[in-house]
């Protein structure tokens, strides 16, 4: 075959536009997911009572059903159930936010649980106010310890945005398949976006690997 680079040259602005949409969706879903995830995380940290049960069910549910199912459900069922309309992008963002919140809640929880019980007791014994204990003793090491998991999840989220092409959100994978069907240069466009995805995600993976090695090294000695 011949790889017709001309198609890419002619249409690259659309692909880049798609990349921007992809990144925008990621950013917004991550933001909403963080807020919802924090709420779910603290409800689950209660350890008992009905907020705890609700959080456990919520997290298990959204972690267990496939993203595609969630996306289709939000896109085609929510507008019917409630009398309001959502754009494809908005329903995509909502679905990914729910997905993200469940995963982030577990990441936050693991980070907070990794805080040293002894250090918290030492801080309590000094009579340091609970708010300061959270800010100065629990959170800083917790954040450092959950960074690899967070970044790793971010790369999962970027990959998951490609699924929104199935409901017609104009992100990168959608642009590529539309351009592909227009020009029959599928392979060219798909290769191009594969490269773009790779360039975006690979640095994140590298960071995760480095950070995990560093953490493992610290635990080692």
């Amino acid at each position, binding site marked *: *075959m011949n790889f017709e680079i001309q198609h890419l040259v002619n249409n690259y602005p659309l692909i880049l536009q798609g990349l921007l949409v992809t990144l925008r969706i990621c950013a917004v879903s991550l933001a909403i997911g963080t807020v919802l995830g924090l*709420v779910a995380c*603290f*409800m689950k*940290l*209660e*350890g008992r*009572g009905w*907020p705890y049960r609700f959080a456990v069910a919520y997290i*298990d*549910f959204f972690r*267990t*059903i*496939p*993203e*595609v*199912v*969630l996306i*289709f*459900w939000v896109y*085609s*069922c929510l507008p*019917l*159930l*409630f*009398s*309001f309309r959502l754009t494809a992008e908005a329903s995509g963002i909502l679905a990914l936010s729910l997905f993200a919140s469940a995963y982030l809640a577990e990441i936050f*929880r693991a980070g907070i*649980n990794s805080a040293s*019980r002894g250090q*918290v*007791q030492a801080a*309590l014994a000094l009579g340091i106010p*609970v708010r300061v*204990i*959270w800010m100065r003793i629990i959170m800083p090491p917790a954040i450092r310890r959950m960074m690899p998991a967070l970044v790793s999840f971010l*790369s999962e989220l*970027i*990959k*998951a*945005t*490609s*699924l929104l*092409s*199935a409901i017609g959100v104009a992100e990168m*994978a959608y642009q*590529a*398949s539309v351009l*592909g069907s227009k020009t029959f240069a*599928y*392979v060219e466009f*798909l*290769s191009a*976006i*594969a490269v773009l*995805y*790779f360039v975006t*995600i*690979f640095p994140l*993976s590298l960071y995760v690997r480095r950070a995990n090695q560093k953490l493992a090294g610290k635990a080692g000695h």
Partner: protein
Amino acid sequence: MFALEEQVEEKRSPWGLVAVMATLALIGVAAWKYVNWQLLASLDFSVVWDYRLALAKGLMVTLYLTAIAGLCGLTAGTVLAALSQSRLALVRWVVVAYVELFRNTPILVQLIWIHFALPVFTGWNTTALQSGTIAIALQASAYFSEIVRGGIESVPKGQWEAAYALGLPARTTWGRVILPPALKSMIPALVNLTISFFKATSILSVLQVSELMTITNRISNAVYKPIELFTAAAVIYFVLGYILSQLTLRLERAAK
């Protein structure tokens, strides 16, 4: 978790709970107002039962694809992991490139790429199911190899040295010394990965490979009952996925 308040002999403040309840109530009221009651009343889940055979067939394809992911992933992944320990730098680099390529691009893109590029490069026209099977096998091999590699690296250096010192042939070193403990230590991770491939098979619906999600979509389009059908699909995925992940948890706890 050490609830901080647990340390003090005082009932904890109820304000957090009140705030959460108020928020939920507010959302509830808003939702209540907007709920399309007419539609809600007309929901008819018997359609799911009517199409039970089609859905079951879809589920079989989903399980078939999951099995492919698990089996191909484990075998090819083990081979890749072994190759990644090769003394030849070239081999190591090829393996790394392959693994990173598949791990750092979305499976959806790989899937469509394979579906369209394979005929172009090989002249072999694949059906959607064939493309899907190939894509999921390739991706699974990359992901599984990472886990197997981690398992292999968790085997203490002393085991290798002992095997070398005994002059064991490579096949025996791998088959009898390194892999058995490595595989044992990574069983939970392997099962978890298989569960995530169970979920990922739904992505193949973009190529209409007649797994559960494709079937759900088709029926929903035909009878226009999206809520009933997508909810049913979500429940099926959830129940199976949940049972599997709970089993893994049990397994992990039992192992400890």
